[in-house]
């Protein structure tokens, strides 16, 4: 009988995940000790501290990786490389912004207790795990931790039937997706003899798979699982309903943190593990991207509910993020990373504005409620206009460079036609972004109610706008950082 060997653990690599989990547990205990009224302040404080701590760790991790190079730990299941560090930083920043937005929302809705922050921290810990995972099982673990928290969060607003409906839908379809994913993991294990991404890559580079049915089936199922999570067409049906039903701050989390986690894991699986199978998965992704871009943009045109509109918009954006994956090169990985890194703050800030306009009860989400917003409140309306222009990809906003980098990566890999279709879908998407932006400046019927902008939410919105404009004018440092991060990609 052999003794159980405990693998060596590099705690710096695990620190972000542990911090978020720890913060979640601390809050759980704290919320039992203090009164519900005070709990929310504690929750926001602890979450903010944990998020800032994670961003600081990312800086230390970055220094470590720059000095020692990329490494793995916990029996090669967790990886510490530049790519993971950038993802970690993005999730930390997104969590910080979300916590602020959620704080003001909870105060407004008189939601007592720290439940939201506890669940959101746990979910983000899952996303962090996905960013660092070097093993299909760990990815699955991250995916589940991420999802279970979100299932509850989506249904958090029990007074609205849409919230319940969204939660159930998300839970059922998400459950299916997880099942499909884990089945894919099993098949992949059967085909290659390992669930470790590096081992799979090694196996596939050393062996010629003569009967690749098992491998293809496994890869296909994994891809479907991911496509569900990032809401790629035709696996997107849940997203508009869930985006609409979920409390608006939760929608912000879903559009940002989930995307960072899922895309980071997808890139690792397809590029590091299945990089040798590029010619097999590329055509599938090709079709997926075209459908995602075109359907996302076209269906958004007829939406009158802003949250549904933004759901389809984020489907369209997911299509663009997939472009970098399709490229299958370090340039492509860097492009997708740049995209999710900059999209996250912008989309959280967008949903922060939507949270404010939604008003008490989180019900006022018709586009008519935005009529003349920028006339009455130039700063709030102007901020939303900038955020929309960034998502549209107008120059001088960071969205332009996000689109630019993924298109560049695609064309560099010989995907001119694919890039063209995606870009034309952006022209369709421009219609609804612009119509939305113009509604803000409409001076027809003017609603008299002034929207109160609390400090924390205002700060989150300002952060999103600053990211959009600052890196829109001066993208250099960010682009260089992301490029370096991807050079430190493992393997």
């Amino acid at each position, binding site marked *: 009988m052999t003794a159980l060997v405990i693998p060596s653990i590099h705690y710096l690599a695990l620190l972000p995940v542990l911090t978020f989990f720890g913060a979640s547990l601390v809050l759980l205990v704290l919320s039992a000790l203090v009164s519900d009224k005070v709990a929310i302040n504690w929750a926001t404080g602890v979450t903010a501290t944990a998020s800032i701590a994670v961003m600081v760790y990312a800086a230390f991790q970055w220094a470590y990786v720059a000095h020692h190079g990329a490494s793995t730990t916990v029996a090669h299941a967790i990886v510490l490389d530049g790519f993971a560090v950038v993802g970690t930083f993005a999730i930390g920043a997104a969590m910080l912004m979300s916590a602020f937005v959620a704080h003001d929302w909870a105060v407004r809705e008189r939601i007592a207790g720290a439940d939201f922050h506890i669940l959101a921290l746990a979910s983000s810990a899952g996303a962090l795990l996905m960013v660092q995972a070097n093993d299909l099982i760990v990815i699955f673990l991250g995916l589940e931790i991420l999802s279970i928290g979100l299932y509850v969060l989506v249904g958090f607003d029990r007074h609205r039937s849409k919230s319940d409906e969204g939660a159930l839908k998300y839970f059922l379809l998400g459950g299916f997706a997880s099942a499909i994913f884990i089945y894919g993991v099993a098949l992949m294990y059967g085909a290659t003899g390992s669930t470790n991404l590096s081992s799979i890559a090694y196996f596939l580079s050393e062996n010629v798979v003569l009967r690749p049915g098992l491998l293809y089936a496994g890869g296909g199922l994994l891809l479907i699982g991911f496509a569900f999570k990032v809401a790629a067409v035709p696996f997107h049906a849940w997203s508009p309903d869930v985006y609409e039903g979920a409390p608006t701050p939760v929608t912000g989390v879903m559009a940002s943190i989930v995307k960072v986690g899922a895309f980071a894991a997808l890139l690792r699986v397809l590029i590091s593990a299945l990089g040798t199978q590029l010619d097999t998965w590329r055509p599938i992704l090709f079709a997926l991207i075209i459908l995602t871009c075109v359907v996302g943009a076209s269906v958004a045109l007829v939406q009158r509910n802003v949250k549904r509109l933004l759901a389809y918009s984020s489907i369209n954006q997911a299509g663009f993020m997939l472009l970098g994956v399709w490229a299958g090169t370090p340039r492509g990985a860097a492009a997708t990373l740049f995209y999710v890194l900059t999209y996250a703050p912008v989309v959280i800030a967008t949903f922060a504005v939507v949270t404010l306009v939604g008003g008490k009860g989180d019900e006022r989400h018709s586009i008519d409620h935005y009529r003349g917003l920028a006339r009455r409140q130039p700063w709030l309306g102007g901020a939303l206009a900038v955020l929309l222009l960034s998502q549209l990809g*107008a*120059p001088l906003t960071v969205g*332009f460079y996000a689109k630019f980098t993924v298109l560049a990566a695609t064309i*560099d890999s010989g995907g001119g036609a694919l890039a*063209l279709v995606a870009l034309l879908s952006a022209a*369709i998407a421009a219609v609804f972004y612009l119509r939305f932006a113009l509604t803000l*400046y409409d001076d027809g019927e003017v609603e008299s109610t002034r929207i109160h902008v609390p400090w924390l939410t205002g700060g989150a919105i300002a952060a999103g706008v600053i990211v959009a404009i600052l890196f829109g004018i001066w993208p250099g440092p960010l682009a*260089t950082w992301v490029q370096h991060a991807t050079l430190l990609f493992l393997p």
Partner: protein
Amino acid sequence: MHSSIYLGVLIVMPLVGALISMLVRKAKNASYYVGVASAAVEFVLAIVVAFLYNDHVAGAGTYDFMTRHVLSAPLGLAYDVGLDGISLLMVVLTSLVLFLALLGARERRREASFVGWMLALTSFTMASFVSHDVLEFFIFFELTLVPSYFIIANWGGLQRARAALKFFIYTFSGSAFLLIGILYLGFVHQHQSGGILTFSYSALANTPISHGVSVWLFIAFALAFAVKSPIWPFHTWSPITYAEAPTGGSIELSALLAKLGSYGLLRFAIGLFPLALPDMRPVVLTLAVIGILYGSLVACATPDLKRLVAYSSLAQMGFITLGIMSGSVIGTVGGVLLMFNHGVITIGFFLIIGFIEQRRGSYQIKDLTGLQGPAPVLAALFTVVMMASIGLPGLSGFVSEFLILIGTFATHPWWGAVGATGVIAAAAYLLWAYQRAFHGKATGANASIPDATTRERWVLVPVVLLIVVLGVFPKPVLDRITPSVDQLVHHVAPTAATK
């Protein structure tokens, strides 16, 4: 070589003006005066640059005021500006258009925003014209859409929202092809030189590419510019957009932004892909000639003065395209000159039509009759502008059309012959419209309209002056553009000739 700081100021100055005009929005009229003042400074600066411009800087071709700073190596992003004779003329036009549009077509509703958008639009257009980097050009080219969209959608006519959207979607889709083409070219260059990603014009212009690739890239570039110009059959957004935009917006669109299309065609599509020209020249020339005839014919049948000018612009843009695609130095010089002259003429047209609309509340020709009686000065000014557009010798339109036709006859006589009939058609639709609107006996509300006010007269003085001066003495302008055109055509010609 002169310092590039002049060009930097030309780009930044309007943005500063826009910022100040937004800050002083509360004070009555203040933002308008700030806008006019910054436009005036911009114009003076453009004139100063025009006098300073030196076309024999050693090692820079005919470029002056050059600089290049790489902003982000992984993105291939750079701030790279320079000015040659062709862009110089466009820079002057840009500042002139802003100045006259603000003076002549004031929007009193939400004035600060209007002035701000107009200034921003000028800054971006200016930056496109002085860009010496293809990606930088694209960014500013694309960026001009945002202010244009908001100007049309906020201050336009009844169908403004639709018109603005149509304009945006058409041009944005056209630009999609351009961006893909630019990226492709950039990577071809990178892979060939084995170095860094760059979109510098000089680097890309010397990239050897195969004939097939060249043709495809030319098509991608030309599509974007054909939509912007517009060239038939990509013009369908333009009549409704020109008609629905506010007067200031129409002026910016047709006098200036359209030129961005022909400028891009000349500088980038022709300049970068000489190999494609033998195949593509007949195609584009044919489209240009169709545009001339189609625009003229539809203009004859148009009941609306503003749309009439829109269709006449389509015909004029056809002439410009004919000139710059002719492949001869003289035709290209004529094309570049017409870009400027048509800009000036269009400012005149839209301003006067705007004045008439303010008085009569309509652009419909059937609502107007005998305006000559109560408003003789307005009629006289319209006549000068109209005659220049028709191409009456002694006025500016004649010089440029004449050069274009000479150049085209030398290289492509058949296209020249058919295109020349457009001059006659222009006379037909313009004179006929003039006859209906200005001649006869003024009845009803037409009889009592006031003549041009002092302010309106003064705004039109520069237009008339430029039309007359460039009609009899175009030499200073021709001297500045000819060396640059000569160089461009000869960069293109050797490869084209050996085909």
